[in-house]
């Protein structure tokens, strides 16, 4: 493997970034009143006690980057891991997008990798020159490791703490050299989730746990269909309930002040304000709201089926990309093979329902909540109350799962609007049924793959038509890379007018995409009489051309990186899966195997599912996941992410299904929106392929291959092909 970071030197002036953020501040005090003498950038301070205080400027939702980013920083600084203290930074525009951008797309480590190392290397360089000055030796003879600066020839050493004051007087370097990966002693080692101890004692503070003096609690009855408005409600009756403080109508003003997307913003509704959460919940049950009429067509599943069926005959709304003339190929061949795959609407069902507390005062609004995208949320909420981002002080607390849901502003806007109305702190708590029934959803979508076949099964043209709503298209930022370019390709979108709000959901578009592509490749292989796993490698190793042009150029896809990074990774992953299969078949053999793989960003993950199926009873015994995600920062937490992703994928495969009746979501809670429980959780093994390329993300790549790998195994076991999620109940299929 190529060593990409071997003595890599970067010029800090070019980006203007590290220098800007690296102005040393002298002698400020931190919140504990402790003297901080070296504060070389916005994220770090070093005290005379030798403790490195590091600020985490993203959102921790269980993905572990609170720990991971600190590891990257500590490694590059040459710090002692035991002497790192990490705290969550409140949102502040001063960090800029590069340091406090959104947390999503499995991109936190990937996007922070460069900036963190630049900042840490700058600080390290200054510590080294301070030490050289102190020991009166040349800088070049010193290096930093494990919280010490060491003079190589004499083996003299000075701990960081003793250098704090002197370091702050050093010149800020114009270039820095990154540490060699061979010297890493923090990155690549299993480090405990830094929140673990607090979690185990029930002491980690989530949004739900926030208490502010004089605060009241709100439960909101939201429009059951996005866009409906309140006509009337039984305010007096509900106000008389003991413990109820007020009953207030809340309206989404965003449309009036901003033309931009309101489909995922706050719904209109009626808020019950009470002295505690339970009273608010109970009183909200007594609330009777009359709503305006539904403007919706497509109010139930039958009409959605009809629309999908109609769309089949429509021409494409737009083309994503095209290489060569695929349509002509279809005209000229008699042999085509076509299959369609369906993903349903799915809810997030994150463990901690949404919650936000706001204290709106004349000159400032303080907010306690959890958000993946503070800048966007505050900007949009600010528009509603006509205030700039700087008006808000946002404490971005860790959350009980997000999976894309906390990218959106609705719950925070609600708290701010209510606190402004009531002139006191308000905590808005979502009940579970609010989260399941009045949210935004993973999109219902169909993927139709068609190939035209020539002699010996050679693919002459390959067309993918995606049937999705206009809003789903907006999520194409997570446009899943296509990796098979061994023929002319056409990918197009046909819009279908679903109106249910669509939101990002763990692995976003890669999920329906993998379901389609990875089931189809398997089916096609079988149709051609080939082994599906070998066939994937055959396709990958015989690429003929990568697209140069892009239909209407809606998306930025770097095909060079597909060719240079993704395809080689996919080949490595499938080769490893082949090896595992051979090993498995010789040692075991009674279960049936199925395979699938997919990319998410530059990460490629492939899976081998072992199942058995008797009398319609499915048992998934084990899933082995092979991952190439570049350098692994923390193998322990990275494995956790893949394990969790597999469980997520299984819930989606087996149960998750949001359905509509008269425009309203029919599901309410975990009894009718089932998720996987421990008794159905299979054995999971995670294998990371060794790779020293820059780290490329781990929170989502484990999800997309789950469904196709198991569906492929089911087909191998029974000959039956299921092309639609969720699968439990289809053809009387049950879980053993």
């Amino acid at each position, binding site marked *: 493997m190529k060593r990409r970071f071997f003595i890599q030197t970067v010029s800090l002036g070019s980006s203007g970034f590290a220098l800007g953020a690296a102005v040393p501040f002298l002698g400020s005090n931190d919140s504990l009143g402790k003297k901080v003498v070296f504060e070389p950038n916005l994220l770090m301070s070093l005290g005379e006690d030798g403790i490195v205080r590091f600020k985490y400027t993203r959102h921790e939702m*269980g993905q572990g980057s609170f720990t991971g980013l600190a590891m990257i920083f500590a490694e590059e600084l040459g710090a002692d891991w035991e002497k790192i203290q990490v705290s969550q930074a409140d949102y502040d525009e001063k960090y800029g997008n590069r340091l406090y951008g959104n947390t999503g797309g499995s991109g936190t480590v990937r996007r922070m990798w460069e900036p963190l190392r630049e900042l840490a290397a700058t600080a390290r360089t200054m510590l080294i020159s301070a030490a050289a000055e102190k020991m009166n030796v040349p800088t070049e003879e010193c290096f930093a490791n494990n919280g010490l600066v060491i003079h190589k020839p004499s083996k003299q050493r000075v701990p960081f703490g003793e250098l704090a004051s002197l370091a702050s007087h050093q010149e800020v370097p114009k270039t820095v050299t990154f540490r060699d990966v061979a010297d890493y002693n923090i990155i690549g080692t299993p480090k405990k989730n830094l929140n673990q101890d607090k979690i185990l004692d029930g002491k980690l503070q989530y949004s739900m746990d926030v208490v502010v003096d004089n605060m009241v609690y709100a439960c909101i009855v939201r429009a059951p269909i996005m866009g409906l408005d309140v006509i009337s409600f039984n305010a007096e009756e509900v106000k008389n309930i003991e413990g109820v403080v007020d009953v207030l109508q809340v309206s989404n003003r965003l449309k009036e002040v901003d033309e931009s997307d309101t489909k995922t913003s706050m719904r209109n509704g009626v808020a019950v304000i009470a002295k505690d959460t339970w009273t608010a919940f109970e009183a909200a049950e007594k609330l009777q709201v009359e709503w305006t009429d539904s403007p919706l067509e497509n109010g139930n599943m039958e009409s959605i089926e009809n629309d999908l069926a109609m769309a089949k005959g429509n021409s494409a709304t737009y083309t994503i990309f095209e290489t060569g003339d695929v349509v002509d190929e279809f005209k000229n061949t008699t042999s085509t093979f076509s299959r369609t795959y369906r993903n349903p609407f799915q809810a997030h069902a994150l463990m901690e329902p949404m919650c936000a507390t706001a204290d709106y005062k004349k000159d400032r609004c303080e907010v306690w909540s959890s958000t993946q995208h503070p800048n966007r949320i505050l900007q949009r909420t600010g528009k509603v109350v006509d205030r700039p981002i700087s008006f808000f002080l946002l404490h971005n607390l860790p959350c009980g799962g997000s999976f894309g849901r906390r990218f959106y502003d609705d719950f925070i806007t609600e708290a701010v609007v209510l606190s402004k109305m009531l002139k006191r702190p308000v905590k808005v708590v979502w009940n579970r049924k609010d989260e399941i029934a009045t949210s935004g959803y993973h999109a219902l979508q169909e993927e139709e793959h068609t190939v035209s076949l020539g002699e010996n099964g050679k693919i002459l043209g390959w067309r993918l038509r995606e049937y999705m709503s206009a809003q789903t298209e907006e999520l194409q930022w997570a446009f899943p890379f296509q990796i098979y370019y061994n023929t002319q390709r056409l990918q197009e979108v046909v819009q279908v007018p679903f109106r249910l709000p669509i939101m990002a959901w763990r692995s976003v578009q890669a999920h329906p995409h993998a379901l389609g592509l990875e089931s189809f490749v398997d089916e096609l292989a079988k149709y051609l009489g080939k082994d599906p796993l070998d066939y994937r490698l055959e396709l990958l190793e015989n690429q003929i051309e990568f697209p140069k042009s892009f239909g209407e150029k809606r998306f930025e896809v770097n095909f060079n990186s597909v060719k240079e990074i993704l395809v080689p990774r996919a080949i490595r992953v499938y080769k490893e899966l082949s090896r595992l299969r051979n090993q498995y078949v010789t040692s075991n053999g009674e279960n049936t195997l199925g395979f699938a793989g997919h990319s998410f960003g530059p990460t490629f993950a492939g899976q081998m599912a072992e199942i058995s199926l008797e009398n319609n009873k499915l048992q998934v015994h084990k899933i082995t996941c092979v991952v190439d995600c570049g350098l692994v920062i923390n193998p322990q937490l990275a494995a956790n992410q893949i394990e969790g992703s597999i469980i997520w994928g299984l819930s989606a495969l087996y149960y998750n299904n949001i359905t509509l009746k008269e425009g309203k979501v029919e599901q309410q809670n975990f009894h009718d929106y089932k998720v996987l*429980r*421990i008794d159905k959780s299979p054995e999971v093994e995670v294998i990371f392929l060794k790779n020293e390329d820059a780290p490329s993300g781990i929170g989502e790549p484990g999800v997309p291959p789950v469904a196709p790998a198991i569906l492929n195994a089911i087909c191998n076991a029974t000959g039956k092909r299921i092309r639609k999620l969720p699968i439990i109940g289809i053809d009387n299929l049950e879980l053993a």
Partner: protein
Amino acid sequence: MPRFILNINDIEYTVEAPERMPILWVLRDKLNLTGSKFGCGIGQCGACTIHVDGTPVRGCCVPVKALEGKVLRTIEGVPTEHPVKESWRKLDVAQCGYCQTGQIMSAIALLDRKPKPTREEINRAMKGNICRCGTYKRIKNAIKEASKNQIA
């Protein structure tokens, strides 16, 4: 409003609350013991699990009125060095952590009853606790680990 005397983690608390208020909300909103979590409110997820006289119960479903004179234990009353917490720590079970206090309370109750649980017994005892982050594999392993390490 009625007044209740509750024995929680060996401390006696006096609270005023509506008698139908579930103990979960008494703990969270009245006593600021927020380690027990709200996940569903209908006994489906286990995030609110506490012990009443040593038995695991779903705090969201038990009214405060039913708990006078009983011995309550919440996650805050389980020592940091408890073998179950230790094994959870060792296996780095928690991701977001939100479900984990409930998971731990269910696991402790299981091991108190069955120090050497079988796979089926683990599944049965833990089935009521949902983890959306998907930490089930580590939960199973941590229970086995704690089962090995507990003082017989």
